[in-house]
C-alpha cells in the first residue's frame, strides 16, 4: 500500500475544511464579544444569526475548496496526506476547544 497523494479535490477541500473550521470557531468568539456590531449584523442578514454563521461557513468552505483546486495551473495544491490529516484533525480539535472553552470560561 502506497502513501500517494489524495487527488486535487481531496487536498483542496481538506485544507478548506481546516481553515473554515478555525474561521467558524473564531467567528463564535467574535460575534459573542461584539454583540452590538457583528452579532447584530448577523441577526439582520438572515432570520437568525446561526443561519448567517452557517451560510458564511459554507460559502468560505466551497469558494476556498474550489479556489485551492485551481491552484498550480489547475492541478490543485500539493500537500502530503500525512500533513493534510494533521491539519484536518488539528483544526477540528482546536476549533472544538476554542468553542467549548469560550462558553465554559467566558461566554
Amino acid at each position: 500500500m502506497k502513501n500517494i497523494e489524495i487527488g486535487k479535490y481531496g487536498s483542496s477541500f481538506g485544507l478548506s475544511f481546516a481553515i473554515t473550521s478555525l474561521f467558524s470557531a473564531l467567528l463564535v468568539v467574535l460575534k459573542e464579544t461584539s454583540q452590538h456590531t457583528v452579532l447584530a449584523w448577523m441577526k439582520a442578514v438572515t432570520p437568525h444569526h446561526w443561519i448567517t454563521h452557517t451560510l458564511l461557513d459554507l460559502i468560505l468552505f466551497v469558494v476556498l475548496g474550489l479556489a485551492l483546486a485551481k491552484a498550480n495551473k489547475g492541478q490543485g495544491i500539493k500537500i502530503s496526506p500525512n500533513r493534510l490529516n494533521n491539519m484536518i484533525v488539528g483544526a477540528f480539535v482546536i476549533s472544538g476547544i476554542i468553542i467549548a472553552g469560550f462558553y465554559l470560561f467566558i461566554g
Partner: protein
Amino acid sequence: MTNFLLMSHAVLGSLLGLAGVWLFVDVLNAKEENQARIRMMSLIIAGLMWLTYLLAGYFYVVYYSADKALILKGPWTFAHDFFMESKEHVVMMLLLLATCLPIFAYNNLAANRGARKIVLWATGLLILTTVAMEGAGAIISMGVRVALLCK
C-alpha cells in the same frame, strides 16, 4: 409535529453514528472488493448529516427559544449556556467534515494509505462528536425538564 421534528434529528444523529462505525470498520478492512460500499457509505453519511442538520436547524431556529427561556429560568442554566451554545456551533464543523468524507473516500483506499488514514481519522472524529452531540442533547432536554419541575 414539533416533537416529531425534535426526535427525528436525534434519531438521524444516532443513525449517523452507527453509519460512521460501519464506515470505520469497512475502511480498516479496505480491499478492492469493498471500495464501492465504502463510497456508498460515505455518501449516506454525508446525506444523513445534511438531513440531520436541516431538521435540527429548523427546530432550533423556530422552536428552541421557548425551551431556552425555560432553561434559563431553571437551575440547569448550563444546559443552554454551555451545552447548547457549544453544540450549535460544533455541529457546523461536523457538517463540513461529513461533506468532505465522500471526496476523501473517492480515492482507492485499498491502495492509498494516506487517503485511508484521513478517512479513518475523519470518521473517528465524526463518531466521537456524534456521541458527544447526543449526550449534549440529553442534557439540554433534562435542563428543560428540571426547569419545569421547579416551576
